[in-house]
């Protein structure tokens, strides 16, 4: 069982839900990212998602696009993020998941990426522009080395897509709560409940919900339906404004 699976299993047994905050590595600096990771861990995060900046983040809304631009201006690269994770892992006890677009991984070399990521202590990877049909090159070796590969589902997903994605995703399944990009407004209707039910029927794997969750009330409602809550833009925005994230994350923790 992977560390991510273990976290979900323990939480499930305790009747709790996972809190998964997202931050962009290198925004505003890699030093700051280290501190944010500690803050998040201490504020009750169960897993942390670390974003790798990319020049063309087409699944992201303006908040994360700008964070990505700022990080690139700082000279952040995938290699530097991997080195950062290695440092963080010396004191951080919870699983870390990288969220990166596919091209930086492809450019580094998929196999080399997996080896370096596992070597650095990365527990899983989420690639928003990689679908299962194109992922064999990643999922094969990732399975051997024990790196979880998290795939995404969306409100538009059909039965076929749900069973395909649920089949290959490891660690957990990432359900994108909105038909849209990161940071859009959440809408939590019947459609979400229905899709989550279909995913649950197709697979036993834990499902975490992300995109558009911005306050404790929404987090609480999502936590009622899923195994985990992912919060990205709302945290990235606070960081951009120089505001404290600890209290915010604690308030979400309480709600989840």
């Amino acid at each position: 069982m992977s560390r991510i699976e273990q976290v979900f299993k323990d939480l499930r047994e305790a009747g709790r839900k996972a809190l998964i905050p997202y931050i962009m590595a290198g925004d505003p600096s890699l030093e700051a990212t280290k501190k944010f990771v500690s803050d998040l861990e201490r504020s009750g995060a169960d897993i942390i998602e670390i974003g790798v900046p990319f020049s063309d983040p087409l699944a992201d809304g303006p908040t994360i696009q700008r964070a990505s631009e700022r990080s690139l201006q700082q000279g952040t690269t995938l290699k530097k993020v991997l080195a950062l994770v290695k440092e963080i892992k010396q004191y951080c006890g919870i699983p870390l998941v990288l969220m990166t677009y596919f091209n930086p991984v492809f450019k580094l070399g998929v196999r080399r990426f997996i080896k370096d990521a596992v070597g650095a202590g990365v527990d899983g990877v989420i690639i928003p522009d990689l679908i299962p049909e194109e992922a064999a090159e990643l999922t094969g070796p990732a399975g051997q080395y024990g790196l979880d590969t998290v795939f995404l589902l969306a409100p538009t997903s059909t039965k076929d897509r749900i069973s395909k994605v649920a089949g290959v995703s490891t660690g957990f399944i990432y359900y994108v709560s909105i038909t849209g990009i990161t940071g859009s407004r959440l809408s939590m209707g019947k459609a979400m409940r229905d899709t989550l039910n279909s995913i649950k029927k197709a697979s036993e794997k834990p499902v975490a919900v992300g995109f558009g969750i911005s306050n404790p009330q929404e987090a609480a409602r999502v936590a009622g339906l899923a195994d985990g809550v992912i919060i990205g833009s709302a945290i990235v925005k606070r960081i951009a404004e120089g505001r404290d994230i600890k209290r915010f994350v604690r308030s979400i923790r309480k709600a989840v």
Partner: protein
Amino acid sequence: MNKKFHKLPDAKGHFGRYGGRFVPETLMPALIELERAYGKYKKDRNFLNELKSLQRDFIGRPTPLYFARNLTEHVGGARIYLKREDLCHTGAHKINNALAQALLARKMGKTRIIAETGAGQHGVATATGAALTGLECEIYMGSEDIRRQALNVFRMRLLGAKVTEVSIGSKTLKDAINEALRDWTTNVRNTHYVMGTVFGPHPYPAMVRDFQSIIGVEARRQILKAEQRLPDCLIACVGGGSNSIGLFYAFLKDDVKMTGVEAGGRGIRTGMHAARFAGGSLGIFQGCKSYLLQDSNGNVLGTHSVSAGLDYASVGPEHCYLRDIEKVRYTYATDREALKAFELLGRTEGIIPALESAHAIAEAVKTASKMSRKSIIIVNLSGRGDKDVQEVAGIKGINL
């Protein structure tokens, strides 16, 4: 070997190791729906008849294949023919694809179409298709291109389209595509994305190619009629690669040389260019695997070309394949060469070409001068130059 082309792409949209689908999962159902709808309507007699009559009465097809006698004499080599896509309604080949996709969107029950545009030609073509089919239309355009192509921005608005400025990233075509993809991801249920070139996730590269292949089908028939033989060489500019593949496709089984001309900008060594084959490497960008101008960390590099329509960091996946099997040769023309050709064609033939097409003219002049007077070249004159007049005046230091 030749038979193989016509089976490509494979079922997952691969041209050899290129192409495929690299998109957010949210879009997958829409891509599958589009693939199915296209598969159905490309064999649907009503759809094809409607498209055919609009190609004739609305676009003005067939476009002429014009023997450029003066240019030929000026160069003193091969006989140069121009395939006059500049005479298409709206002024470029882009309408061949945009109109067909607008028809398809309506058949699919979509109420809204969106598109990216660089030079503004595809935006104008899509806005035109939307006006004709009664669909709502929104066009994404980088602020740098809005500045360069002010005339086309106003044309789109006159046609009833909403033009949305994209001012993040490099503020050019690639950023407009990101934004259009984000819009599509958000509004996928009622919206069709009219990709303007043979790029992006499957089925776009194949579908756009098919809609543009009428260029070559006509040219082949026309040259056989005019010269009773096939040409020796075809030349076209390559942005995403739609006008070039449109011309080449009908000749792939023939023994005809083909040259694609990318934007050399200020020269490959300056880094300010859009020559993906000369300066790029394999990468994954905006939906497919192809040659890409990128840095060593996999971030996409800024590009430069005097022509907005060629100013793009990647190139259609089928072109990569055609290059690998040595069916098409790819080269580039610099800004300076293109500007020279732009003026040359105006003076010799009375035709002001689009700056994009001027890249092909520049290469044609080079190639023709090395060939015998009996040889035949067809150049795809992909668009007319009205949209570029102001920009060229600016470069020459003339304030209009």
